[in-house]
């Protein structure tokens, strides 16, 4: 047990600064101490608290107050000044701006938009990306998704602009003021790990179903990375340059505008990039609350079990994501490198060409994508899916069908795990979480994790939360097993790595909803398909982080182990994996967060538990059920993230060294 507690030694690096011998001894035996204390606490708990679920006396029933809040909002939405003079204007502003962007896109026509995208990509990132974006927009049209794509694009433009503005301002505040930084950082850290699904209900409650709610939910989801990266960029500004600027007599504002912000531009662009990706990730989920566009097409297609049509709407989202990701990433790399005079000419050419194309199509009266140029991919895809389900579902000789696997997985893994967790006395669950968080992270993360879990008990959803937790644990175990194996394999074989990369890219950007129906067809209804979808979604990140970690292992260490005569297996187990430990921990952390996000959506395919409650709350407008489930999901996410979060202590150690 104690063998796994190596972080204690890294942590001791920070503590040695204090120089106290006692402290040093304490930190060295930290792991053992924690385990000993836990054992004592277990005995004490068993004697004094007994077994059983979260005691009813410690929980609060919020359904009454929540019901009256929701009634109040519905009754006063048309008349109360808060809505008339503030929220109503927010909502109108969103509608007006989305509409403005949408009309501009429509006025440009399909050729104009495609030309603009291609030329921007050419100017920013070169010919290759220009061709990619040309192809991407053409495919959107060919799939018959032009208008929905434009609607999604309009919504994205507004949402991303708002996220960048809001995130930038918050980041600026956190970057310049230490106090703001201390306040904001935990909030932003937390927001980043929350499943998007949890944001929907509160926004819907205030704004009602529709575009404003969708945009605001997207902004809440996409702004944190921008804020974090802005703050990071400003705080990491080179001290020498800042000193020089001060000594040249620059005022505070000059220093900010001419030194700090330009120095942070890489982080700023990375922030924009991250915001865009998060916003696109939200595009489909937001369709549940009326975002329209591509997400709505995916959602509607899934309602009639039409995987092909869902895919036809899902592909443009993936393509948009890929183009926007590559273009902003290239912009980040290129910044400052291009000579100024030629670039201005290039931009002028680009603008003129776009205008010419847009005008040409307008004169030719061909603003909408030509009907004849579409290709129906839905049918062949559906046939393939039908074939798969017909032949794999059951009765496959020797290995059994997917339905049998799902049944076995549910009976032998999910059920015992769930009943085991629910059988554990509530204080033992809290204790386990605390101990795990202490072993991996710091006392701070441990306290947060335990408090978050306790909050779930107080909210009165202990049992469903443990049900969700059991699904998360099972999915994470499978993801790690497969992901680490694949990651190690692709790090050791370049060919496999190259073959895997595009597959991983697609799986990661594909909207989670698209997975849901094929997994039902393969695994039936229940918790097994929810787990399967979660595994598929989380796998790419885990594979990628593992592969990077293993690849980044110091070549000198590899070389010396080889010269000592280690076999390939020994090298992997005794050098590469131990040295890649930080990356592996990060993979666990990411895996847990991503899995939770999808397990929650699994409520739509019979996953039950918290996810179902959240869906139920949205569908029935039942605030009491939905908000409590949402809050519990938030707490669960917080707890899982903190338990698996090793970063903070490593930061400390890094600074001490």
């Amino acid at each position, binding site marked *: 047990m104690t063998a796994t507690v190596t972080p204690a030694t890294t942590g001791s690096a920070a503590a040695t600064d204090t120089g106290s011998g006692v402290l040093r001894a304490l930190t060295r035996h930290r792991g053992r101490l924690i385990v000993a204390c836990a054992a004592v606490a277990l005995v004490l708990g068993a004697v004094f608290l007994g077994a059983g679920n979260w005691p009813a006396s410690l929980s609060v029933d919020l359904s009454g107050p929540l019901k009256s809040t929701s009634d109040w909002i*519905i009754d006063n*939405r*048309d008349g109360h000044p808060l809505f*008339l*003079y503030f*929220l*109503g*204007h927010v*909502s*109108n*502003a969103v*509608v007006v701006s989305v*509409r403005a962007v*949408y009309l501009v896109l429509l006025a440009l026509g399909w050729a104009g938009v495609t030309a603009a995208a291609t030329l921007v990509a050419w100017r920013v990132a070169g010919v290759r990306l220009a061709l990619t974006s040309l192809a991407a927009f053409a495919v959107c049209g060919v799939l018959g998704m032009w208008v929905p794509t434009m609607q999604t694009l309009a919504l994205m433009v507004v949402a991303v602009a708002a996220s960048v503005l809001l995130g930038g301002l918050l980041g600026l505040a956190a970057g*310049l*003021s230490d106090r703001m930084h201390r306040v904001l950082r935990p909030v932003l850290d937390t927001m980043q790990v929350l499943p998007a699904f949890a944001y929907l209900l509160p926004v*819907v409650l205030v704004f*009602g*179903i*529709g*575009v404003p709610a969708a945009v605001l939910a997207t902004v809440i989801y996409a702004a944190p990375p921008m804020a974090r990266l802005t703050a990071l960029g400003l705080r990491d500004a080179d001290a020498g340059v800042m000193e020089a600027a001060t000594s040249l007599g620059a005022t*505070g504002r000059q220093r900010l505008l001419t030194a700090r912000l330009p120095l942070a531009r890489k982080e700023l662009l990375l922030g924009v990039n991250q915001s865009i990706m998060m916003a696109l990730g939200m595009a489909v989920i937001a369709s549940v*609350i*009326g975002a*329209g566009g591509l997400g709505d097409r995916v959602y*509607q297609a*899934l*309602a*009639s*079990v039409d995987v*092909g*049509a869902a895919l036809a709407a899902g592909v443009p989202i993936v393509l948009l994501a890929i183009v926007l990701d590559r273009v902003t990433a290239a912009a980040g790399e290129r910044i400052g490198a291009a000579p100024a005079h030629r670039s201005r000419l290039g931009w002028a050419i680009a603008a003129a060409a776009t205008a010419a194309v847009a005008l040409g199509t307008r004169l030719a009266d061909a603003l909408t994508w030509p009907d004849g140029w579409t290709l129906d991919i839905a*049918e062949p895809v559906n046939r393939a899916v039908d074939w798969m*389900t*017909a032949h794999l579902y*059951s009765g496959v000789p020797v290995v059994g069908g997917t339905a049998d696997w*799902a*049944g076995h997985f*549910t009976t032998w893994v999910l059920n015992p795990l769930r009943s085991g967790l629910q059988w554990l006395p509530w204080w033992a669950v809290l204790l386990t979480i605390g101990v795990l968080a202490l072993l991996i992270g710091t006392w701070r993360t441990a306290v947060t994790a335990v408090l978050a879990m306790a909050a779930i008990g107080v909210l009165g959803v202990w049992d469903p939360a443990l049900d969700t937790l059991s699904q998360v644990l099972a999915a994470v175990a499978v993801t790690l097993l497969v992901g680490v194996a694949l990651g190690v394999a692709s790090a050791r074989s370049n060919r496999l790595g190259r073959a895997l990369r595009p597959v991983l890219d697609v799986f990661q950007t594909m909207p989670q909803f698209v997975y*849901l*129906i094929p997994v*039902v*067809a393969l695994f*039936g*209804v*229940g*918790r097994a*398909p929810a787990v399967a979808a979660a595994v598929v979604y989380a796998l790419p990140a885990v594979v990628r982080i593992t592969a990077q970690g293993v690849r980044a292992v110091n070549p000198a260490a590899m070389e010396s182990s080889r010269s000592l005569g280690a076999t390939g297996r020994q090298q992997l187990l005794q050098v590469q994996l131990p040295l890649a430990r930080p990356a592996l921990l990060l993979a666990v952390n990411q895996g847990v967060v991503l899995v939770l996000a999808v397990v929650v959506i699994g*409520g*739509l*395919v019979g996953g*039950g538990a918290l*996810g179902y409650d959240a*869906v*139920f709350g*949205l*569908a*029935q*407008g*039942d605030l009491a059920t939905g908000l409590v489930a949402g809050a519990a999901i938030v707490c669960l996410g917080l707890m899982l993230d903190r338990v698996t979060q090793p970063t903070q202590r490593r930061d400390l150690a890094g600074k001490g060294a």
Partner: protein
Amino acid sequence: MARTRIAALAAAAAITVTALTGCGAADMTRQSSPYADAKGSRTVTLSVQSWVGAQANVAVAQYLLEHELGYRVDTVQIDEVPAWDALSQGRVDAILEDWGHPEQEKRYIDDKGTIARGGELGVTGHIGWFVPTYFAEEHPDVTDWKNLNKYADQLRTAESGGKGQLLDGSPSYVTNDKALVNNLDLDYQVVFAGSEAAQITQIRQFAKEKKPFLTYWYKPQWLFEKVPMTEVKLPDYKEGCDADAEKVACAYPHTPLQKFLNSRFEADGGDAAAFLKKFRWTTDMQNDVSLMIADQKLSPQEAAARWVKQNEATWRTWLPS
């Protein structure tokens, strides 16, 4: 000093925002979709619920509004209860198929007056418990709820644990199943598929293997044409027997499905509002269109176009004179 400047900036920003937006009160009952009315056309926004029958209503209405009356139609997929809210705020103009929400009717029609009744759709809806017909033929007595416990063993799945599985669908649908299982002392576990799509997929998988199953389902629904199912008789429905959600021990009622319009749209909607009020067809007609959409995988527009071509006599009467 820096702080005062920040405070001043914040104040200035707040004033600008107020100046930009705060000239007057915003009307929260006139919240239209940003995609509506593009290119200066008259637009109607219809709410589509997730089930295919509702898609069929909307597809045909959309086709006729666009091709016969010259409107542009936007559709938004919204669940049943939030759709009422959206209708009241003017985000959608009409709901074409509602399965009965007395609480919302009282709040929005009687109290606030933001929603108006649009008459009957002509289709009668019914919710119930169903077993596949192949199973009912083998075991005729399964169609009475009193005998259900006898078959609990055969209806077990991994999800339902030691009990029989009663498959339920989307959380947005009206259901008393948990209470029913409880109050009728049935040895069953309600398993929520979470969405209708998931439920249909599961039913078809069961049917392909001729496995028995028990499911919450409703009529009219196209799936009956693909997987014949027989209803299980529950204790008779009597007026008011489902008043207390905890104590329900009776079958679901037969509900004449209703249309609802936004009040403002009803008054000023012109031809579109008049047309939607007259829109009235039969269960079979709705099923025809639903089948084309869900089973032949035609797009709703194509399905509607086909139906319109064959049924001119019916829809002619809906057009405003």
